[in-house]
């Protein structure tokens, strides 16, 4: 069972729209957990057909992130990203990519992919969303 994290604006109906998109693709949701982080909605799903779920969500306005990426919640201020990437540098963990997924109400949601995901998760567990 694999996890998909969906980042979107925080408004009514987001979870319903996600469920409708997945139902239309005949994807079963095994578990769902939605929360508000800063001004964004973060929905974590586990599904039975992972690739189909990602494909279906790619057709929606939502930003779906596969479980290969680590999703972090950071303060939206200069140098905050540098503070986190320094941890990777010091631990000699190479990052493949760092992407800002959404910024709202003083919070940045950032996705980091690396080839040593397990170790990387340990490094950033204080700010990790998924």
């Amino acid at each position: 069972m694999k996890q998909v994290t969906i980042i979107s604006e925080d408004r009514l109906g987001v979870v319903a729209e996600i469920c409708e998109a997945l139902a239309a693709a005949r994807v079963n949701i095994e578990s769902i957990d939605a929360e508000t982080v800063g001004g964004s909605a973060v929905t974590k799903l586990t599904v039975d057909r992972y690739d189909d779920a990602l494909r279906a969500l790619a057709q929606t306005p939502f930003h779906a992130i596969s479980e290969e990426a680590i999703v972090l919640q950071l303060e939206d201020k200069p140098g905050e990203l540098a503070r986190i990437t320094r941890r990777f540098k010091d631990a000699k963990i190479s990052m493949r990519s760092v992407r800002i997924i959404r910024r709202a109400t003083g919070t940045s949601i950032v996705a980091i992919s690396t080839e040593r995901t397990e170790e990387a998760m340990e490094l950033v567990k204080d700010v990790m969303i998924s």
Partner: protein
Amino acid sequence: MAAIVDSPLGAEDQRRLDVLYDGIRHDAQTFIGYPCNPLFDYSPLFRFLSYPVNNVGDPFVVGNYHLNTHDFEREVLEELRRLTRAAADSFWGYVTNGGTEGNMYGIFLGRELFPEGLVYYSEDTHYSVSKILRCLHVRNIMIKSLPDGRIDLDDLRETIKIHRDVPPIIFANIGTTMKGAVDDLDGIRQSLDDLAIPQHYIHADAALSGMVLPFVDDPQPWDFAAGVDSIAISGHKMIGSPIPCGVALAKRSNVDRIARSVEYVGTLDTTLAGSRNGITPLFLWYAFRTVGFEGLRRRVHECFEVADYAIEQFRRIGRDAWRHRNSVTVVFARPLPPIIHKWQLAVHHEVAHIITMPHVTRAMIDELIDDIAQDSPNCAREDDP
């Protein structure tokens, strides 16, 4: 000689083409959200469409495929060399399939020069760059943007500082997609100097603004004279073309360095594509000959006037709108979906834009403003009692 067509197109197929043509002609009347200029007449060149013209390979290298337009392509590149203030003795380029190929070429060149390099780009960068970074498998970090769309230099500097042992490959936006913001190249170079990073590469995505800034009196730093190593400019945007096209421009010294590694695999073709469009270089050449630099300068300034007119009209109905200096992108609050659909507006989160390309008239702006005012009854019109 064998018949070229075995059977004429059936009535149903012909009808479908007619419907398609009518739809395109109709939708062109409200086409103001994307940076394409449909005002062109390349009909004197249509005879070349009767031949399988193909500009395969490096336009500066003679090949065995003779049905090409390399001579004209080189003349186009020479015009662009002048516009981008590149040194005559260290310049190379080719006509691409569009802005994305030019950006891919720039990042490819940066990565070949610095295989361990890290690409830095702002969150306002065009979505296609994420795709390029994935295709090229190059390490990358997205940097925050300022509210006006420019890259946040503080964030960039702090992030580069952490990785100062790794050559930075800066992807600079010379006119962001949504807001037309020009990244502060002087500030970027100053940051690299302050951090004592001598090895770096700067690519400029000047898709639209690359054919705007050469024609203004006070351009932001953006070109080879401002220190960039490569530039991508679109041809179908300000110049105008029925077929998407663009140019990838680079310093020849850099291209020659990577050409050695290409030669190792048995070819000296340094372009990304194999077969290349041979018609679009003719379109660009024809535009330079018939519109010319003075015509383009006039065109750009007329676009600014329409942009300012649009901003005035938005403000007249109580809506804020703005544009960056030297930009034809007018940014305003995202309107309702029917308006987005009718006017083919590009939207991102809370904002939308129109781009006052040469075909956008004051009458089109008036109609858009009327639509927005009618759908937003709370908008106060200055001329309301």
